[in-house]
């Protein structure tokens, strides 16, 4: 996934990783989490990512020269130290491993997760709903194109005010706002009266 140049191939391999993780969750006796993993991650989030990749017409990355080349020996040394530490832990530290689950328990079933969510962890659950609401509002605000009003429109409560160039593109230099209290007055002042009815017929 990291070595792919095309983000779409990376996304598809990431879906494979998610499905493999879901299989691991099944072997860990967590069927609810496995189902949610497939539905939410592989279903919802990755569909969103693939949709954005398709929408934005992403091209392949071109190979660029490596920056900070002087730091490469230092990075190799640090990586060697890290691997040495990992090998030390693996080979010399005696692990007191937990016992794997062999007998049947209800941990991980949907009923136990639901009971936990709605009793002990009710407050985080509700905060999660607030978070999702904020995410929905934020995503809509970010993805909306432009604003509701043009730049030169003046907002006065109780009035319906539109810039002249919005109503009539031929009068672009004339930026005096048009004041109207109803749609009919806007049609009168912009010369659009009667055209809508003509379109209807």
């Amino acid at each position: 996934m990291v070595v792919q140049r095309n983000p779409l191939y990376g996304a598809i391999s990431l879906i494979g990783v998610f499905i493999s993780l879901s299989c691991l969750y099944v072997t860990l006796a967590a069927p609810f989490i496995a189902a949610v993993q497939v539905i939410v991650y592989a279903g919802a989030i990755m569909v969103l990512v693939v949709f954005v990749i398709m929408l934005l017409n992403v091209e392949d990355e071109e190979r660029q020269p490596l920056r900070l080349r002087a730091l490469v020996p230092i990075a190799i040394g640090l990586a060697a130290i890290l691997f040495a530490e990992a090998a030390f832990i693996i080979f010399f530290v005696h692990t007191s491993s937990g016992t794997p689950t062999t007998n049947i328990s209800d941990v991980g079933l949907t009923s136990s997760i639901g009971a936990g969510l709605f009793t002990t962890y009710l407050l985080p659950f509700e905060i999660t709903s607030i978070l999702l609401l904020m995410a929905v509002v934020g995503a809509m605000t970010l993805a909306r194109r432009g604003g509701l009003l043009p730049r030169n429109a003046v907002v006065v409560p109780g009035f319906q005010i539109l810039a002249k160039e919005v109503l009539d593109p031929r009068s672009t230099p004339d930026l005096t706002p048009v004041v109207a209290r109803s749609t009919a007055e806007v049609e009168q002042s912009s010369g659009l009266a009667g055209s809508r009815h003509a379109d209807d017929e």
Partner: protein
Amino acid sequence: MAPQLSWYLALSAVLFTIGVVGVLIKRNVISMFMCIELMLNAVNLTFVAFSSFFRDVTGQLFVFIVMTVAAAEAAVGLGIIIAIFRSRESLDVDEASTLKF
């Protein structure tokens, strides 16, 4: 041979490292986004492994909440990506180094 707890932790560490390396070396913002998702999944695997080996359902509840946060992050992050692409016509993070529009 039954799977040990440390095997799952090692796999989680490997996945998390791949995610960190991806965030560090990728220049495409969507690829960085997917690497962040990979890191979240590595942490989820740790939670589920501990929850299963210690017979405690709290870890799986936390995984549920992490998934919700990931969904919210996906929505907002992809909105930001679309906004950046509209203003700059590029997804390279080096070109979007300023926060000004």
